[in-house]
């Protein structure tokens, strides 16, 4: 934040003049990009649909209230499936992500080539949404919660793998050195010097991903991969908005509980 002389009055400016212009130009460019994007979107939008959007919204909400509680009982089993999809999927994902993270971390990888492969797996898994994995897996292993679990697992590998390998790269190197200096083997150093240091972060990451997976698992049914999403999809297709509302309420309650559980566990781990 320079002080600039103008005549003989000192003028305080936040930036140098040249930088200031560059700054404005940047904002201009950003603004133009946004307008251009908006133009493309508006081109592909049938604006006539929007004239009655408020009526549509009102009638939608009107039909959702009150929720159709009569189906609550029949939703319990799908809800249990949803929780299982999330939990088992998370565990499977972690089981693969854990060794992968050690291959991907700069300070524990046995070979740079292996590190590149591990990073490629992690980034592919992370870039692709669980729902897309589920669409694929349904065509491969058939519809049902097994496809859902695999989808959740595949998506979790990248998430858990990335955060864990970053945690491994951030450990203090001195205990690792100290144990290497005692003559301990590679795996012993991992077990005694690396693992204790990453353990709290690891537990936190796993629970965090489980919490996210509960939410994701609620939607997998839309593509046939099991859980409460199946019932939601059926209700939407039948335009039974009262039933849809019931599903929403149940999802909301489940998510609140899972968030509470994960906060508790993360707190206990610290």
């Amino acid at each position, binding site marked *: 934040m320079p002080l600039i002389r103008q005549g003989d009055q000192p003028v305080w400016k936040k930036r140098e003049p040249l930088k200031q212009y560059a700054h404005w130009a940047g904002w201009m460019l950003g603004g133009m990009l946004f307008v251009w994007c908006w133009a493309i979107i508006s081109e592909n939008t049938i604006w006539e649909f929007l004239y009655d959007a408020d009526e549509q919204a009102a009638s939608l909400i009107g039909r959702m209230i009150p929720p159709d509680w009569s189906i609550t009982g029949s939703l319990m089993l799908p809800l249990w499936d949803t929780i299982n999809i999330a939990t088992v999927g998370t565990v499977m994902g972690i089981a693969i992500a854990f060794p992968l993270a050690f291959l991907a971390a700069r300070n524990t990888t046995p070979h740079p080539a292996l590190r590149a492969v591990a990073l490629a797996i992690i980034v592919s898994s992370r870039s692709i949404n669980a729902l897309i994995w589920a669409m694929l897996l349904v065509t491969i292993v058939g519809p049902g919660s097994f496809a859902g679990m695999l989808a959740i697992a595949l998506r979790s590998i990248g998430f858990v793998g990335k955060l864990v390998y970053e945690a491994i790269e951030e450990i203090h190197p001195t205990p690792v050195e100290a144990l290497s200096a005692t003559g301990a083997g590679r795996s012993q150093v991992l077990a005694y010097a690396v693992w204790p*240091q990453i353990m709290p972060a690891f537990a936190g990451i796993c629970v965090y991903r489980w919490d996210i997976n509960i939410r994701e698992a609620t939607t997998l049914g839309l593509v046939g991969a099991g859980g409460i999403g199946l019932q939601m999809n059926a209700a939407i297709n039948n335009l039974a908005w009262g039933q849809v509302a019931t599903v929403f309420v149940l999802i909301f309650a489940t998510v609140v509980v899972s968030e509470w559980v994960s906060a508790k566990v993360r707190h206990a781990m610290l």
Partner: protein
Amino acid sequence: MLTLTGLSKRYDTGDLALTDITLEVPAGQVMALIGPSGAGKSTLIRCVNRLVEPSSGTVLLDGQDITRVRGTKLRQARRQIGMIFQNYALVERLSVMENVLSGRLAYLGFWRSFLRQFPSSDIKQALNLLERVGLETMFDKRGDALSGGQKQRVGIARALMQNPKLLLVDEPTASLDPKTSRQIMRLICELCREQQLAAVINIHDVVLAQQFVDRVVGLRAGKLVFDGPPSALTEKTLTDIYGEEDWSTTTGETDESDEAAAAAIDPLKPIGQGGHP
């Protein structure tokens, strides 16, 4: 016992940290390595157990050339060399007992160490060492719950668990208060004499070194510039090692105050965690 011949180290960055060091440390000798910051003291120590790969020269431990071994052989060589660090290098989330026992890892297979199945002789030895360093009641405490002096005691116990022939000690007292520093130095030197261990101790505190060691070696810019008994350190030799400075307080007068300070600590009393109640 430890023989360095023509040892040099050039880091990848181009820094020449050690030039042609030749040095012999007989069994049971406690040697201090002094020199200004950046002289290459840590590099020398780390070349001995190959935490740093020497660029040229040999390191012989009981006649075996350590610079040539790899894999299991290297681990077997390392387990004969205990190391003590300035920042203790404990695994903070493991208990004191686990930290001490981790000195035995090189004697154990992976699964036994993973499942914490240490032989009872190791456990008894660990307890003896903890008693010796005055921490026997702390065995279940976690590393991060200890004070600096206590951590260093655990570090010492871990190094001795290896039943080493040689101790490498890198500035053991640099993070400690003066009284604890003294206690730690005395503990290390006493243990070395009891067990007939050779030791190489990096240390900045010349007075402290003079008081406890048998021999002093001075490094300057990677070269050996002094080698002799502590009594041979004069203003001139200190100037050779560290450069121009008024050394009179270090070589002359402090001898008395040192004696006084040393007398203040009962030499017969085993060192407990007195500095840190």
